[in-house]
């Protein structure tokens, strides 16, 4: 009996480890940013490029930062949910338009001059928001993705919840699904707003 017990225990342990390991999503890398202040930046706004937006403008509010781009397919998937979120007025949504022109593989961004790139990015972003609805109180324009690096963006869409003191409380990688919205975002926002 004892002869078979230990191999059996070993086998069960292995199966459990593999089941847990294979069930994890390797793309969900824990962000070191959670619990730390949201990195500062100052970027032109998509709707009003002569004005800049900085995260410190949102101090005193619990807010959501959503990284998006018109070329990002998953952003389209989450967009209706963001529109819904905005309608509920649960919290203000700020967009970070990430590498609108350079990130689009169908454009040869090397051949586009910086001025033209900004113009093109603004046109594309605004047109897209007009067509699909704009859930954001405003969007900031991160043309070269430098702010994205500070936020540890490695796959669009990404979503951050930032508290009243400007501390990042949650980072969600990938599209916001109804499940993520109701199970992760809403309870956290309710708690942070207490």
């Amino acid at each position, binding site marked *: 009996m004892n002869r078979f017990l230990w191999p059996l225990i070993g086998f069960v342990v292995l199966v459990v480890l593999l089941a847990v390991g294979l069930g994890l999503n390797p793309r969900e890398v824990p962000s070191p940013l959670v619990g730390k202040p949201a990195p500062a930046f100052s970027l032109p706004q998509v709707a009003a490029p002569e004005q800049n937006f900085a995260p410190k403008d949102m101090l005193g509010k619990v807010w959501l930062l959503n990284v998006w781009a018109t070329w990002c397919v998953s952003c389209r998937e989450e967009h209706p949910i963001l529109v819904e979120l905005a309608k509920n007025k649960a919290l203000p949504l700020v967009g970070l338009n990430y590498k609108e022109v350079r990130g689009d593989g169908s454009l040869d961004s*090397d051949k586009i001059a910086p001025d033209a790139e900004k113009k093109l990015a603004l046109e594309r972003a605004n047109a897209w928001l007009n067509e699909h609805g704009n859930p954001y109180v405003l969007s900031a324009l991160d043309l070269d993705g430098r702010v994205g690096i500070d936020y*540890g963006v490695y796959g669009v869409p990404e979503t951050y919840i930032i508290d009243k003191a400007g501390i990042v409380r949650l980072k969600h990688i990938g599209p916001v699904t109804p499940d993520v919205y109701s199970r992760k975002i809403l309870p956290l926002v309710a708690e942070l707003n207490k």
Partner: protein
Amino acid sequence: MMRKPFTTEAQRHREQQRERFLASGSLGFMVFLCVLCVSVVNPAFSKEAAPLAQDEATEKRLVAISSELRCLVCQNESLSGSNAELAHDLRREIRTQIAAGRSDAEIRDFMVSRYGDFVLYRPPLKGTTLLLWFGPGLLFVGGLVALIRYLRRRNSAIKDAPLSAQEREELERLLSAKEPKK
């Protein structure tokens, strides 16, 4: 990003090769033309390689740093080898920081503070990584202990069974008996 024209060692070398190639007869020239046609017609190959940094020392440091870092988009590739968009951006960032005089450790910390320990191919030794670092050693020692215990137990299970006087006699008789003739 604007590209400044400059000539690297590799480009000069390539140019020399091309000249030699052109001079090496008409067959070589035909092949060269074919290659040229393919590379002009096929848009998949038309994107140029990203420019190297101006000086070789920077590029060497860039490769040294970035080959120790994981690309988060294609996670089994290093930042130095990956062709992902993000890897390009991060390499550019590392170049900028090298130019700004940051040390290798500072650049690594910069990446870790944004993307976490996951970007490091050599994870740091700390509470949450103890099992990762010493797990294989523990498994090895555990296996060794189990093996030694098993061998000892088996040794003690094998009993020495000397022959009795009668058996010895029988053995002697069998060994000394002449082989029967065929």
